[in-house]
């Protein structure tokens, strides 16, 4: 009886661990998962901290093999002060002759910066439809939290890399947008 209970608990826990891990990552920014705010950002956090060093943000762009888009960052780097909001652009072009839906995810390295890297607005996690042959500029509006200055573990952070990956997506039978693996 006792063994059965333990067994059931064990199996239950194993099934729960995947979604739990995902929730954990998104809440704590563990392992580079970017933190996305659940409340509107207080404008007082958006003040550039004048006496800090500028942090260099570089950009990376990838697409899944299934997606026939060319996708590139439009600037090599942007140097920002903590608290200073900044704009960056990517360009995506649908190289095929069909309309395609893409969906982007992003990641920030080094992983420890993820809790401080805030996206105000970008083009990720929602579907983006490009017509055949269409080319579009995709902006990212972000800032680095000025609290980064108070964290001794962040003292050696000079460069942050923002990586976007575009996947091909489609609607499944339930009407949920899902990525199509390569």
């Amino acid at each position: 009886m006792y063994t059965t209970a333990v067994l059931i608990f064990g199996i239950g826990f194993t099934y729960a661990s995947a979604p739990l891990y995902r929730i954990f990552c998104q809440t704590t920014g563990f392992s580079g998962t970017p933190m996305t705010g659940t409340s509107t950002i207080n404008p007082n956090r958006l003040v550039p901290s004048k006496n800090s060093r500028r942090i260099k943000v570089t950009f990376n762009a990838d697409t899944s093999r299934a997606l026939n888009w060319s996708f590139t960052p439009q600037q090599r780097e942007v140097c920002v002060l903590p608290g200073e909001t900044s704009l960056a652009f990517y360009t995506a072009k649908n190289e095929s002759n069909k309309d395609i839906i893409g969906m982007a995810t992003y990641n920030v390295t080094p992983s420890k910066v993820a809790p401080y890297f805030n996206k105000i607005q970008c083009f990720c996690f929602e579907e983006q439809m490009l017509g055949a042959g269409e080319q579009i500029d995709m902006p990212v509006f972000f800032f680095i939290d000025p609290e980064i200055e108070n964290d001794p573990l962040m003292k050696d952070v000079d460069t942050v890399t923002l990586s976007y990956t575009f996947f091909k997506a489609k609607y499944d039978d339930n009407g949920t947008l899902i990525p199509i693996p390569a």
Partner: protein
Amino acid sequence: MSFGRTPNISTFNSTPPDRGSFPLDHEGECKQLVKEYLQCLKDNLGNNGNCRHLSKAYLKCRMNKGLMVPDEMKNLGFHDEETNDNKDK
């Protein structure tokens, strides 16, 4: 939830960025400002501080064309740094 999917692809409803996703500028209505901003970044070796007025102009353009929910500039981090701008929006 299903398993056996490639890791890192999440169909979980990820919380979007604070203001969600930018609508795509299919008509290229603000494209000129994009070009100006990128040129400014090139000229300033990526220093964001000198190009913020162009970021602000770009976001204003988006708001005017219905490509962004209108909001006050200070909520987007543009406090009156430039002496000309006293009343934003």
